[in-house]
């Protein structure tokens, strides 16, 4: 479920970016590296919106690490999935 939320959200944001890397995602695909800061923000907003639709409540996923090149949980599809799973469980 969460993986689908992420894949759909990335696809939504990638409609404008048209990145080939982001259109063929696997666990190790580097997501953050292929997004500019506005696109990261777009992705945060998309994921939060889709999580709200799925779970019927607002789940905040953004924190101060999101835009941090080293700590960001948006590094790969795998790291992002784990991060969102932890947020959903909170």
């Amino acid at each position: 479920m969460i993986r689908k939320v992420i894949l759909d959200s990335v696809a939504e944001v990638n409609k404008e970016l048209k990145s080939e890397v982001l259109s063929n995602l696997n666990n190790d695909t580097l997501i953050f590296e292929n997004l500019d800061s506005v696109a990261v923000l777009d992705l945060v907003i998309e994921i939060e919106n889709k999580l709200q639709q799925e779970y019927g409540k607002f789940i905040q996923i953004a924190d101060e690490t999101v835009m941090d090149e080293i700590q960001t949980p948006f590094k790969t599809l795998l790291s992002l999935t784990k991060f969102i799973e932890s947020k959903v469980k909170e």
Partner: protein
Amino acid sequence: MKKKVAFLSNTVTKPINRFLPQYQCSSFGINTIAQTLNTSIDTDYLIILLDINYFASDGFLSDKSFNKLADLVSLLKIFRDNNSAKVILSNTAGNFLDINSSINIQQHRKVFDLNQQIDKINNIEDMTVLNIYQLVNYYGFKDFYNIKNGFLFQAPWTKVALIAIADAIIENINLFNNIRKKVLILDADNTLWGGIVGEDGVDNITVDENYPGIIYRFFQQQIKHLKDSGLLLTMVSKNDLSNIKEVFSKRNMPLKWDDFVIKKINWNSKSQNIKDISNELNVGLESVVFLDDSDFELEEVNSALGIDIIKISTNNPVENLTIFEDLLSIKTLNISNEDKHKSEQYLVQNERKNKQKEFTSIHDYLCSINMKITMFLNNTSQIKRITQLINKTNQFNSTTKRYSESEILKMMEFYQIFSFSLIDKFGDLGLISVVIVKDNNIENFLLSCRVLGRMVERKILYLLTKSNNAALTADYIKTTKNHQIESFYGQLSIEDKVDDKGLKKYYFPEKIDNVDFIKEKK
């Protein structure tokens, strides 16, 4: 080529761009607000999107918030002078977090007062308000704002908000360029009330305080508001006149019989009745919208006239309450004083026409209606109506040169811009003519078509000659519609010349005969 939209905001607006693919978007940070508004910007539309923190200190509004708004309005006026871009300024929704109810109420009052002040920018040419307050009320604060993202990224909008704001921006841009419909043509049975009066009887149609009658009352109230915003209401119904009259006299409804300027209640085809309405009101069929519950009638009208039609739901009348929400063609950014009284003006005009029939000559009639004309010079308080006349009048318009509000204000420093209002025994017709004069030359003379045929133009030329105490000249540029002014100038001038650019100049004598039956009002 995409139109350009520039954002000026204290939030990050780039996420909105995704939902405005038809525009080329750019943004300016709020730190540069004075600099941005003081210069010329290469954009078609400037969207100033300010969340509460622009006006508030640490999230709360105070008296200083109003000073900040006053500063912003001053900057906008400077911007107006240097730019042709249209401006959309957001109002504010305030802080909905409930700290303490009395503080909250105080804050809401301040938000309301602040928004009332923001609303006044509608009076500045080519500026309008983006109603964020309404959007937040509609979607709810929690679905609209993400407080943490606001603090983290200066991006407080949820996806719901981004789409709603983008849609509202698109609607406002469209409204800047909208040619508004003028007339609503309404069916009666199953449209203004539930049921068929001829079959169910006047006491059994549903339009009352109970369900579903309450829905029809709400719908009528919406239509009444549209009338007050300048749309003319007319009725087309296949019915006996007595039945419909009985409904309006016996049933207590928001809409009254006199709210409809024309009623066509007969058994003729609806397309014929609509054509007659269009002729009687002297408006083109492209300016009318027809609402009916019957597919047969809608199809008959559509195939015969090709006008805009709207289907009224009888199975689920509550759907009808959202019809006008999405109907851009009846919306307007500004409602002028003139708009508010359009129906009354039409009815008075009709009374004039009926009275005219009682007289054997037009001269006798004109002498009987006590016309009084007032002349104004460079009157800035009339700027909206002067601009409207300059840009809307086609028939009696000597050069059809169009000017914006700011251009006219500037011209008032160097030109004589005369305006004329007229009253008669039936009522006040308001401002009906504008004449632009420079060095005793009439560069533009225009008269509202509502007063054509009353010899008002003669009186105006007499007053201008008297006021300037000199022989006047006048420019004329021919169009397909303005032949009336050519014959008027031709009758009174002593000479005319055409230059090599096609501009015709008329020369008038030093004295023009007075028109005695139109009195000058001091």
